[in-house]
């Protein structure tokens, strides 16, 4: 559940980020600070990216930044960073304003949260809505509402 996997303190809004390496570090900072990932997790993701490109850019404005569990994940958790000026991770990848840092302990146990995120990712209007949020509270409420709506559809 979003309420379990995303603490409100893990949400941040920034005006700009200088480059993609900094973006990886900044997006992981809340997870590092609270002990959900080891400090090496961000470095491992940067190394992965240098090897195979930014595999976590899902569409315009969305980066789901993550590595493998053994690359430094301690407990599952999310962090959300919104940046007003889009960041580019490579020349041919989409500019991104929503950076979602994912710490997953295995391939499946975060399925409920992924379902909520996926319902946002497939909907351009929802992405815009989220990207244009002005406060942490707004982002948090939006995600909780998305989760609730999904549950109502399923019931």
């Amino acid at each position, binding site marked *: 559940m979003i309420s379990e996997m995303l603490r409100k303190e893990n949400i941040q809004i920034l005006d700009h980020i200088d480059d993609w390496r900094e973006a990886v570090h900044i997006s992981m900072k809340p997870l590092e600070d609270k002990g959900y990932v080891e400090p090496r997790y961000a470095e491992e993701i940067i190394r*992965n990216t240098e090897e*195979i*490109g*930014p*595999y*976590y850019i*899902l*569409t*315009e404005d*969305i980066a*789901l930044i*993550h*590595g*493998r*569990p053994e690359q430094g994940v301690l407990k599952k958790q999310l962090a959300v960073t919104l940046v007003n000026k889009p960041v580019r991770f490579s020349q041919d990848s*989409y500019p991104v304003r929503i950076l979602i840092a*994912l710490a*997953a302990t*295995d*391939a*499946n146990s*975060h*399925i409920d949260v*992924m*379902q909520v*995120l*996926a*319902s946002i*990712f*497939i909907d351009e209007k929802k992405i815009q809505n989220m990207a244009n949020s002005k406060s942490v509270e707004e982002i948090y409420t939006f995600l909780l509402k998305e989760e609730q709506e999904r549950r109502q559809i399923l019931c």
Partner: protein
Amino acid sequence: MLKILTVCGAGLGSSFACQMSVEAVLKELGVEAKLDHTDISSVAAQTADIVISGKNFEKQFERITLNCPAVFLDRLVDKTEIKEKLTPVLKEVGAL
């Protein structure tokens, strides 16, 4: 049943999100399939009828012997692109 495998670098984030978009598309098309997600280093050891991955992995896939068709996406979660690229492949494997 038709088995579709989505693939990314870590096998739990991008491929998982992609799997969910593919699920939504298959529902619209009325195609039943078993879906799963994995990472690129384990894809060769798995069996599937169709493999779906990001364009950035296309080169790496050239080094792997796949026994099934592969679809490469620009946007991993874009239903329109998935439908457009997956439909001919579904026809090719006789699922549509």
